[in-house]
């Protein structure tokens, strides 16, 4: 829990620092003020850096206070649910174009539903997967004219 509490401000400090350092590497402009494209990112990353440090200090002061939301993340199967959804999303990205919309979506939604909703409700999972995949495909591709693989 402490890792998450400190991790977030540290991440913000890293992001702000990366933006700040990369801002100086932005090429100078040939048009108008050569430093024109730099001002905004430099100003903002310094602003974000200062605030992230204040945020870190605030978090350090309240490090021992309990945060129910962070605790919820580590309870039950929450982390697994999030990790499986992300993993399935990554697989979906790879199979979407080669397998085509319908097959890849049936596989993605089916796996996600079986994992989230449980194997006991297999009938509902199969019906929802097939019907919604088809309805979405029909809606987008036929009614709205969106070209899907």
């Amino acid at each position, binding site marked *: 829990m402490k890792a998450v509490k400190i991790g977030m401000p540290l991440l913000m400090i890293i*992001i702000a620092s990366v933006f700040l350092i990369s801002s100086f590497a932005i090429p100078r*402009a040939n048009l108008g003020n050569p430093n024109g494209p730099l001002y905004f990112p430099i100003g*903002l990353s310094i602003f974000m850096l200062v605030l992230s440090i204040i*945020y870190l200090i605030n978090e350090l002061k309240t490090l021992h206070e309990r945060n129910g939301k962070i605790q919820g993340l580590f309870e039950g199967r929450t982390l697994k649910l999030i990790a499986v959804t992300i993993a399935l999303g990554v697989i979906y990205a790879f199979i979407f174009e080669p397998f085509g919309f319908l097959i890849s979506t049936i596989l993605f939604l089916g796996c996600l539903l079986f994992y*989230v909703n449980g194997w006991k409700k297999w009938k509902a999972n199969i019906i929802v997967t097939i019907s919604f*995949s088809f309805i*979405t495909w029909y809606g987008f591709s036929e009614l709205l004219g969106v070209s899907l693989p």
Partner: protein
Amino acid sequence: MDAFLQGFQIVLQPMNIFWVVIGGFLGTIVGMLPGLGPATAVAVLIPITFGMDPTSAIILMAAIYYGAMYGGSRSSILLNTPGDGSAIAATFDGYPMAQKGQAGEAMAISAVASFIGGVLAVFGFIFLAKPLANFALKFGPSEYFLLMLLTLSAIVSLSIGKMVKGFIAMALGLLISTIGIDPQTGVHRFTMDIPHLSEGIEFLIVIIGVYAVGEVFYNFLTIDKVKKEKKKVGRIWFTKEQWKRSKWPILRSAPLGFIVGVLPGAGGSIASMMSYSSEKQLSKKPEEFGEGAVEGLAAPESSNNAASVGAMIPLLTMGIPGSGTTAVMLGALIMLGVRPGPLLFENDPGMVWALINSMFIGNIALVIINILLVGLLVKILDTPAKVLYPLIIMLAFIGTYTLSYSTVDYFLLLLFGVIGLFMKIMDFPIAPLVLAIIVGGDMEQNFRMALTSSNGSLSIFFSSGISITLIVLTVLSLFYPIVINRFKKRSRNGDKEAISA
């Protein structure tokens, strides 16, 4: 007047009426899902608008918006879990009413209150929008920059107690908006030589990521803990006595909500809270508030719907969204090639007035949907979240694909989903991030244009009455949380003194 009638003609086309009804219905369903509000509803359903003409698209999006506002109060009343901030006040008395077996009456009065609030606010829109658009024509780059600054600082300040986090979210959003080719000079910024990044990060992916995927991830925290509650709906209409108690609160709350909605950063949550507390103060039976007082439900419902109409004014007249949901709508409109701002009223009055008139029809459709189809809506609400959340994830992926026809964006979608999740867990307000990403590009360009026109002198930002007013308002907005805290402390001390006396 011609434009008004032209707008009516457009909205009365069968296809547009169809979109109003569909948008209202779908918005109601997504808005009903616990934890998901209007911003998510619009974000998830944006892909439906692609391929539509811009007028139908904006009509559909607005219908989704206020549909979700209606829907949000269904889950507040029946499950005590508001869809978003603006539906919180509906739990105070709506849920106790449902516990007393008056769920049907509560839903009917909330639908009617929302309807009256929405319709009265449309009249406000008609009177205020055009003059405000004319006024906005006086704005130059420096005024626009300052207006965006005011909107951002107001939206951060209003997330009381989270100002540091709000400003971090805002700065991060503005920094993300600088990724890509700088439109003024053609210089590549933060693209890391990845061609996909040269056009910048598509803000709709960020929106769908944080609002749809992030919200679902966040709801995974409680997905196995939600207990099903069977509610007796009872009769679906209110009694004469309930109407007598509600009518004045509804009529008083509508203008209040509308005005709060127009203000930058405020929106439905504040509008509904303000009208709830003011009605409690005005009431002869304040002790009944929180125990199922019908006016305690009717007032915020009228107010938050009026606010949702009011929020469209700065969006359409100035191109400045005042809330998370209108920011999402602005993103979608830009995608469709529509540039909201004062010139929209000159160049495309048909679209603007069609939207305004669609709000009348949409509110009528929604009150019918929400009263006649209560049974169906309650059944949908019974659909397990474990089925609905995977469907939302699927829609988010497909929506993302339709934006760029590239699955590379799926990774960005997941990344922003995780960012959204941690922002929610760590209590970061999300609206400043989203708003900043959307207005960031314009804000920087206006800032630099203003400086170019003044040969680099910052005095341009103090050169007009409008600019100075905007600066003063921005500074005041930063002090708002301090004033509120003082006020709260004083009233707490007052309470203590009263008790000890």
